[in-house]
């Protein structure tokens, strides 16, 4: 080892970084990990497979909303995709990163590395949570974007027929698709928050990812049991269709408002629990 740089007198008031700096580094870390691209790749691949399947068959998914219009306008493609993807794709994508983002620090033993710098624990927590949510949002954008581009390329961007039977011009249709994706994001944030909590308290990525998926599938199962109908409005899995209210004429905000508060009932306690666990925990590994 060679010459040591002469140490200077340490400053009493070091300029401490803000959450933005930590958040930017969380995104860089995500960019450097393979699992990031697995999730984003799946978000791009599923609409591609869907379009190929539509091209290779004579019919379409007529029984679901917008299914009958899927070969009339590319605007219907991402909407039908959203309906299919709430079952497993997006819970999986959300769990893949949100369920790993804290526990991977435990797995690599790097929590002690970052917690002994000049960044407070709450800043790291907030940055990680924001990074996980950003990833979920990015995956949704990729999914909708690829669906729209492929649908538009195959069937054009003709006006969309709303769920009320009225015609929606292409420009407004695209805005509504964007708004629908944001509405879809609401329960997805709650799923990500649950994955984040499991990641924080289990310190184990596999347990957090699988635990989130089991919880998600369990809610879907509960929703289809006829004797438990009373529970359905309060299950996260049932909130993924709230965006359909935007595609009625006039707009029906009730399902979106309902989805927002139901999702908050899951997300807020999960985030608070994760926060307390993270800032209070002993880092012994």
């Amino acid at each position, binding site marked *: *080892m*060679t*010459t*040591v*740089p*002469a*140490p*200077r*007198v*340490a*400053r*009493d*008031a*070091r*300029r*401490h*970084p803000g959450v933005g*700096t*930590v958040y*930017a*580094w969380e995104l*860089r*870390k995500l960019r*450097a*990990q393979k699992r990031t691209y697995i999730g984003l790749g799946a978000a791009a691949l599923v609409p591609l497979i869907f379009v190929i399947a539509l091209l290779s068959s004579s019919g379409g998914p007529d029984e679901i909303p917008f299914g009958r219009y899927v070969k009339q306008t590319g605007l219907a493609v991402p909407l039908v995709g959203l309906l299919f993807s709430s079952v497993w794709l997006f819970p999986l994508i959300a769990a893949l990163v949100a369920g790993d983002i804290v526990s991977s620090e435990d797995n*690599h*033993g*790097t929590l*002690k*590395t*970052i*917690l*002994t*710098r*000049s*960044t*407070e*624990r709450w800043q790291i927590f907030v940055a990680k949570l924001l990074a996980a949510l950003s990833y979920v949002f990015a995956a949704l954008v990729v999914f909708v974007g690829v669906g729209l581009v492929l649908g538009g390329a195959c069937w054009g961007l003709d006006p969309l027929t709303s769920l009320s039977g009225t015609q929606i011009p292409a420009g407004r249709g695209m805005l509504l698709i964007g708004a629908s994706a944001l509405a879809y994001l609401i329960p997805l944030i709650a799923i990500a928050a649950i994955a984040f909590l499991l990641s924080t308290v289990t*310190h184990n990525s596999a347990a957090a990812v699988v635990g989130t998926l089991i919880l998600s599938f369990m809610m879907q199962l509960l929703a289809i049991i006829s004797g438990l109908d009373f529970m359905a409005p309060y299950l996260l899995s049932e909130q993924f269709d709230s965006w359909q209210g935007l595609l009625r004429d006039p707009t029906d905000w009730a399902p979106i408002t309902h989805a927002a508060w139901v999702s908050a009932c899951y997300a807020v306690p999960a985030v608070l629990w994760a926060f307390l666990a993270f800032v*209070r925990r*002993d*880092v*012994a*590994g």
Partner: protein
Amino acid sequence: MSTTQPAVQARGLVKRYGRITAVDEVDLTVKAGDVYGYLGPNGAGKTTTLRMMLGLITPDAGSVQLFGRDPLVEGVRALDGVAGFVEAPRFYPYLTGRRNLELVAALDGGDAATRIDAVLDTVELADRARDKVGGYSHGMRQRLGLAGALLRDPRLLILDEPATGLDPAGMRDMRRLIRRLADEGITVLLSSHLMAEVEELCDRVVIIASGRVRYEGALDDLIATTAGRYELRTTDDERAHQIAAAQRGIDDLARDAPGLTFAAGEGAAAALSIALGEAGVGITALVPRTATLEELFFRMTEEAPAPDAAPELVAEEVRA
């Protein structure tokens, strides 16, 4: 931060994991400018203490202050001017060495990032800085850990067995580097298993066993406590042992093949030599002997009651 404050002051530190007391009422003071050795067998509570100093774990009782600041009260601001690592330094294996340093520099704020090239040169990792850490050897990771610590421009370096896993040349280089940093005014708290390393580098030490402090103070004072010991070799050690045992002023007598060891003042040692001569026992050697740090370490730590279990292992289990 006041420079008159001790670099580290721990008072009554306690950490329990269930029924196991990993750290039990530990008091220690590291003065600014010290190179302070922290010694203890595996599971003695060394790493747990260091974790409490760095705010990674919360003590059940007691407090620790770094330059007068308590990490539990002031959070990471108490770590200004403090750097180091506990156990093996860990980095993101999927990032390069340089990227890892950029990351920790960003988390440090200030102008830490401007020192990256310099610290990479210091630890001789500049030519491997663009390789992913996943491909680094243990020694390279140790050096990267030290580079990460130096980025903080520290006044206090807390190093947990920094030479562990290094080859002999790496250990020598690490010792030289620590010595040089100390000579340049950085206070060093060095946890180590390597007695020669501690004897070479440290001026003050704490010895801990079963979570309790057995000795804290100057290394020279510790060695001096063993002055007055003698090593005796004779033509008939058995007979010499009997005579010595009966002689006034001879303490702590032990057979130490070949020969005997004992503690005595100069007068008692002289009287013993006369008594041996009168008994026809020839003295082949009678030499004053001071214990090595290693001997003192074993004496202090093996006298300690056996721990119920290795606390750091218990900590790992609790964490798991």
